[in-house]
């Protein structure tokens, strides 16, 4: 005889599922983790509410410096009241829409080009045209735009200019140096090795010092080169050495058989590199390359030391005005947010590419 009994489904204990279960397994699994969680929460309770009070509740946003000195909270007015000088620096006030337009074009172009499936010849021409338009907007002198000297270029446009062209020019130079380092010709190899190791051994500041105090001595009499351009050259020379080391890693990772296969097809050195080796090598080092480029972007802030007015230096000069002294924290948080946005999106982009590459190699 058998009886059919319905077995009751036993639900898991309430503590092991849902929100409570998550809290238990992620925050209170074990004595050590429980203590850590409680400590973190206590520290958070002590410091977060006063910070929120300071930053949002007691803060003033659109007042003059006088009201700021009387307020107990954060003075975001230092940002809002000086925003145009902070972003555009000494660029003539009535023409500041021009750098703004140039920056918007740059960002739009970058966002559009993020997917490499769109990289083709036509996009290259569009980029050339966009660069021309941006240059025209910044410099002026044509089509009724008033000419603006490059010594007036400052703020965020200067930061973006230095980093964009620094990255653009240092990349091919770095690739050339990496190839030189791999070369079988002793003279070329020695020059590349000396260049890379010399530059990587010294801080960027010494290069900038060189560009600002030593470079004028290198030029024949009567020839002067604009300060921005000199800093730009220093950044390019510096970044190229780091790009070269990253690319070298990629070149070393390519199987020797690839080069041998290319040679057996009768390709010469340049065809072999351009068509077979570099496309593979550069692809696998995209993530570390983006890392170098992010560093280059952050490093442009060092031009403060040779008295160029990038966005960090315009902030400093605002803080030197008596009305706004004492609000450094607020002003620096604002530009830290700007830098963070750019760097973080670059690193997310590199992660995205990395994931895409991994997916591709997995399915092959």
């Amino acid at each position, binding site marked *: 005889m058998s009886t059919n009994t319905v077995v009751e489904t036993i639900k898991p204990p309430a503590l092991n599922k849902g929100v409570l279960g998550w809290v238990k397994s992620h*925050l209170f699994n074990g004595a050590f983790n429980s203590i850590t969680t409680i400590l973190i929460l206590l520290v958070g309770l002590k410091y977060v509410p006063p910070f929120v009070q300071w930053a949002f509740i007691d803060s003033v946003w659109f007042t003059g410096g006088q009201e700021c000195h009387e307020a107990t909270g954060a003075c975001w007015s230092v940002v809002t009241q000086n925003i145009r000088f902070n972003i555009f620096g000494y660029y003539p006030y009535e023409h500041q829409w021009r750098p703004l337009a140039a920056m918007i074009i740059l960002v739009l172009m970058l966002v559009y080009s993020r997917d490499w499936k769109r990289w083709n010849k036509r996009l290259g021409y569009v980029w050339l045209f966009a660069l021309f338009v941006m240059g025209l907007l910044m410099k002026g002198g044509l089509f009724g735009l008033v000419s603006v000297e490059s010594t007036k270029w400052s703020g965020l446009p200067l930061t973006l200019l230095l980093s964009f062209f620094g990255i653009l020019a240092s990349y091919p130079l770095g690739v050339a140096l990496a190839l030189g380092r791999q070369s079988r010709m002793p*003279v*070329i190899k020695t020059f590349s090795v000396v260049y890379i190791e010399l530059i990587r051994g010294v801080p960027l*500041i010494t290069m900038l010092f060189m560009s600002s105090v030593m470079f004028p*001595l290198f030029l024949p009499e009567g020839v002067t080169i604009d300060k921005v351009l000199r800093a730009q050259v220093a950044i390019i020379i510096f970044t190229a050495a780091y790009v070269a080391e990253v690319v070298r890693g990629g070149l070393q990772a390519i199987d020797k058989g690839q080069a041998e296969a290319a040679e057996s097809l009768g390709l010469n050195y340049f065809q072999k590199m351009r068509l077979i080796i570099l496309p593979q090598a550069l692809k696998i080092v995209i993530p570390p390359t983006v890392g170098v480029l992010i560093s280059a972007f952050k490093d442009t802030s060092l031009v403060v030391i040779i008295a160029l007015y990038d966005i960090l230096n315009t902030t400093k000069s605002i803080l030197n005005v008596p009305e706004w002294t004492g609000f450094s924290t607020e002003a620096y948080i604002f530009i830290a947010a700007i830098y963070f946005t750019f760097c*973080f999106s670059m690193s997310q982009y590199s992660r995205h590419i990395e994931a895409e590459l991994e997916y591709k190699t997995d399915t092959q």
Partner: protein
Amino acid sequence: MVSNNEKYTGKTYFWNDEKTRGIIYQVVTALLVAFIGYYLIANVQNNMAKQSIASGFDFLEKEAAFEIGESLIEYSAADNYGRALVVGVINTLKVSLIGMILTTILGTIVGISSLSSNWLLSRIGTAYVELFQNIPVLLQLFFFYALFYEAFPGPRQALQPISGLFISNRGVEFTVPAAHYAWSYAIVAFIAACVIAFIQARLARKHQEKTGYQFPSFWAGLAILVGLPLLTWAVCGAPTAMDVPALKGFNFQGGRNISPEFSALLFGLVLYTASFIAQIVRAGIQSITHGQTEAAMSIGLKPKNVLSLVILPQAMRVIVPPLTSQLLNLTKNSSLAVAIGYPDFVQVAGTTINQTGQAVEGVALMMLVYLTISLLTSAFMNWYNKKIAIVER
């Protein structure tokens, strides 16, 4: 067999010969570099003659005539440029060495935290890395420097978290033991204890390899390190007099002082570099497969030995090379001191260039000093890396 290899049967032009072509390329490159070098040097000489700037390193002997805010060796404005530059080098080394130690510790903690099974802790670790990595280190230095000046009160209202420690916008003042010969002997004893503890550890290890018997070398070493200096100090009369900083007029007298410049520089460098080291440590630990832990446990190792004998030695191999370059970056970034007024080597050299006009020599000295530091550090780390690398048989 078909053999119509053009290279050997037919006539070859010399420019189609790979070897000859290589030589031509190299000669052209060498000539080009030599010509550019000659042109630049000629210009420099010409310009310096025109502006009547002296050349050579004679200026090192001349009186510097500027003060330096902080120095570990005796220095006054009457000393020569050479000594001023040495002060700068020492200051650079000081901030770099302390920074390297602190940033390695902090980076390791953050790296391990971001792997924690505690969700809150791992999120904080990740957020830390993202935040500090994506903000320029110079901005961080300015921020901490400004914070020091604006958030902390003047010397008169100095904060006193523990007795004898004062924090104000003039820096951190702390109590030190009053000068007594016992302290210097204790330091000598400590150095001797380090050597003895090292020898002791090696002997214990050899003994273990020979007999299998484990000598508690860690505790013995600790006892030597603590005991010997303590004993020396006690024998010399156990002085307990303290040099407490006290407010006199507008500033503190007595005790020791850490300047706001140094603090801000150290803070900025340590926090920034630690975010990179955290990532390296995390990657290093993640590179060790779980099988290693399981294997180590299955042969009966205790949990602490699993970490110290199996996981860490392997993780170190992945960690050390990138860690080296990060520590070097910290040293190079310490040159940003010039922006907040800490008298490091670049700042002193910069002042020297401004006063003497000898830019070429000044910049050459800067490069020389940093290259030396870089080469020495990487030589040491390469030696260490070789020591821990896989021994392939």
